[in-house]
């Protein structure tokens, strides 16, 4: 009834090729943007920012990055944690070496550095595929974590090997350090996520994205029709690593403020982000958001219900929470092996016909 194409006439090519061709979709999208930028910043407090929104936004960036590589280009990567660590240590070195420069520039530069490292570790992808490539990226994960643990230069020779984010500002507002306000933190991450998601959406709709998908679907066929596997795969690695590097930089500087590479960027982080895109949906921008939301918000929600409302013991609640999240993942994937994005797609298909299915 509301969700329909009928009567929604396009009169130009630009209209025809827009991201959200259906009017209702478009309005919903504008509404989400309006709430995210115009409403939430006025109501957000420290708890909501630090425990809910900021981790969600940052994991969404990381999931977008991995989705570009794995979902769109078909290159399985288990090095996400390591690449996030590159972003985090790059931003740390930059923000301590050039304290007067805006942190936004540092975050983007950290993404750039991660892109270079990502391309380097992406080189094996030209010869190996699938599980073999996954193992090669696993090597990146372990090597990078080892490197940041081993070489004291990366953590400025601090006694404990911890890196801590000093206060840095954007346009006079602190976005890192302890005196950061909740809205500043939230908006900083939101703006970066918005820009990157917009970029990712348009990249994947254009030539670059189509090349990635051609390589993913069948690399030999793609090569025959003129897609250069070298540039295509390496561009996927570069752009994906850029996203992941930005996520790592924000994760360290804005969200946690102090990290230790083994604990924050270990192999479990790589798996967490891989699970996000698998549950959310491979090759889908919405899926990256849905997966990040599922794995970040659900544990917090369950904890608050079980401990805060039902008054369970914390250890019992923590164990039950693991079981519920695990069971939900299995149920979701049995119900829809292509992830939450596919569920959303199906729901939209049904909505088009509703309430007259015939």
């Amino acid at each position, binding site marked *: 009834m509301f969700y329909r194409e009928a009567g929604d006439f396009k009169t130009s090519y630009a209209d025809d090729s827009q991201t959200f061709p259906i009017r209702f979709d478009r309005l919903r999208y504008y509404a989400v943007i309006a709430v995210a930028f115009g409403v939430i910043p006025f109501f957000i*407090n*420290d*708890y*909501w920012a*630090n*425990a*809910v929104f900021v*981790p969600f936004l940052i994991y969404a960036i990381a999931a977008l990055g991995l989705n570009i590589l794995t979902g769109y280009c078909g290159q399985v990567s288990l090095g996400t944690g390591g690449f996030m660590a590159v972003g985090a240590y790059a931003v740390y070195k930059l923000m*301590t070496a050039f304290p007067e420069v805006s942190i936004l520039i540092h975050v983007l530069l950290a993404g750039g550095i991660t892109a270079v490292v990502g391309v380097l570790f992406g080189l094996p992808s030209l010869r190996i595929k699938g599980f073999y490539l996954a193992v090669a990226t696993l090597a990146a994960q372990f090597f990078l974590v080892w490197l940041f*643990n081993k070489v004291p230069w990366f953590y400025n020779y*601090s*006694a*404990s*090997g*911890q890196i*801590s984010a*000093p*206060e840095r500002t954007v346009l006079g507002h602190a976005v890192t*350090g*302890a*005196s950061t306000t909740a809205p500043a933190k939230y908006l900083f991450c939101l703006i970066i996520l918005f820009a990157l998601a917009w970029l990712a959406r348009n990249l994947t709709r254009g030539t670059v994205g189509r090349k990635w998908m051609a390589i993913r679907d069948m690399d030999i066929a793609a090569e025959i029709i003129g897609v250069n596997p070298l540039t295509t795969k390496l561009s996927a690695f570069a752009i994906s690593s850029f996203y992941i590097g930005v996520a790592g930089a924000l994760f360290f500087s804005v*969200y*946690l*403020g*102090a*990290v*230790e590479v*083994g*604990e*924050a960027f*270990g192999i479990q982080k790589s798996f967490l982000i891989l699970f996000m895109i698998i549950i959310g949906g491979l090759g889908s921008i919405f899926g990256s958001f849905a997966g990040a939301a599922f794995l970040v918000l659900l544990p*917090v*929600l369950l*904890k*608050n*219900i079980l*401990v*805060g*409302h039902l008054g369970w*013991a*914390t*250890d019992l*609640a*923590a*164990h039950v929470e693991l079981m519920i999240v695990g069971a939900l993942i299995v149920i979701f994937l049995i119900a829809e092996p292509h992830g939450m994005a596919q569920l959303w797609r199906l729901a939209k298909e049904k909505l088009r016909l509703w309430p007259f299915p015939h």
Partner: protein
Amino acid sequence: MKKTMTAMALALAVATPAMADLMVPNLSYRTGPYAPNGIPYADGFNDYFTLLNERDGGIGGEKVVVTECETAYNTEKGVECYEATKGDGALVYNPLSTGITYQLIPKVTADGITLYTPGYGRTSAANGKVFANVFNYPANYWDGASIIVKDILSQNGDNIQGKKIALVYHNSAYGKEPIRTLQELAKKHGFELVEIPVDHPGQEQKSQWLQIRRDKPDYVIMYGWGVMNAVAVQEAVNIRYPMDHFYGIWWSGSENDVLPVGDGANGYKMISFHGTGGDYPVYADLKAHVYDAGKAAGDGSNPGNVLYSRGMYAAMVISEAIRGAQAAAGHSNVTTAEVRDGFENLNLTEERLTELGLPGFAQPIASSCADHGGPGTAMIFQWDAGAKKWNQSSDWISADADVIDPLIAEDSAAFAAENNIAERCN
């Protein structure tokens, strides 16, 4: 859809319990690879406050509300716990994790809340001139390293020139802390230091102990936590390393770490900044008011063990600081700022410890604006596998201040410069 969303939003929003009288959150971990050590500590912490509430009606007539929050030794969950509890007027945090401590240091400083990290956390927080809201008395990691070396010295007629000492450490902020001190001590006393990292969680240490078997260090010092401890003790037994030459820092010396190894662990040494065992008079009160009343935390199997005693120690210091804050402020419902002052002016005497039912349990502490580090003393304990108990094998040993004080000054100055902190107390 909308209804579930609203319900979810509500559930997230109403996460926090009602405003408490004296709110002391317990960021504990009862799950994950560090749970065997996190559980007794959390139980001791909770039981002591339960005792105060049941026996004395709280502190100065105000009930203490201990909200427990599970961190699983994970920094992200630690942040969530901090934010969830801070809005309720939390007075002091004790996260029992060096990683979480590093994160909370700037946050508590900005929020004016106290962070109390007995025997862990950031060592240079002992310098109150830089770290206004962080207290780590009675002893820190560097004190621990120095005390162990002192004990080794005393066994070798004060000469360990040319000896080889291996440090087996948890490859994290916590485990790396003592390296700088041990390097300085190696220079001073002329021993050779071998650094052997063990990655989280430390269930696999074959290669590390192979290296020890090959290098044959004269002494091994361990900075481990969680399952890593028991595995290391087992591996040491496997390579027949002499257990009385194997020292654990206070976090590597609990019953959980040696009991699984059985008789082989006999003679293993650890240092502690408080006594252990269930013989202190306070346990009579605990039994009457807490255990027998069915109010014990956890499964009630931990009273008297090392980590339970440590949790109780932390709770005791916190309660004494709050008591001091109440006396200084002249009212019982103290604020976070008053509690911070209470920590800064803490004067815990031996008489007071005796009054509390803990005679000889710990060293007296007299804190000041500049001194947040306490006396820096500890005792050596040795494991008796037959009797299944820790025997005290030394008197209180104090750390080598000549080595540690300059290191603390250097590290805290670096922190102050990085964060534009002006020195206080001048």
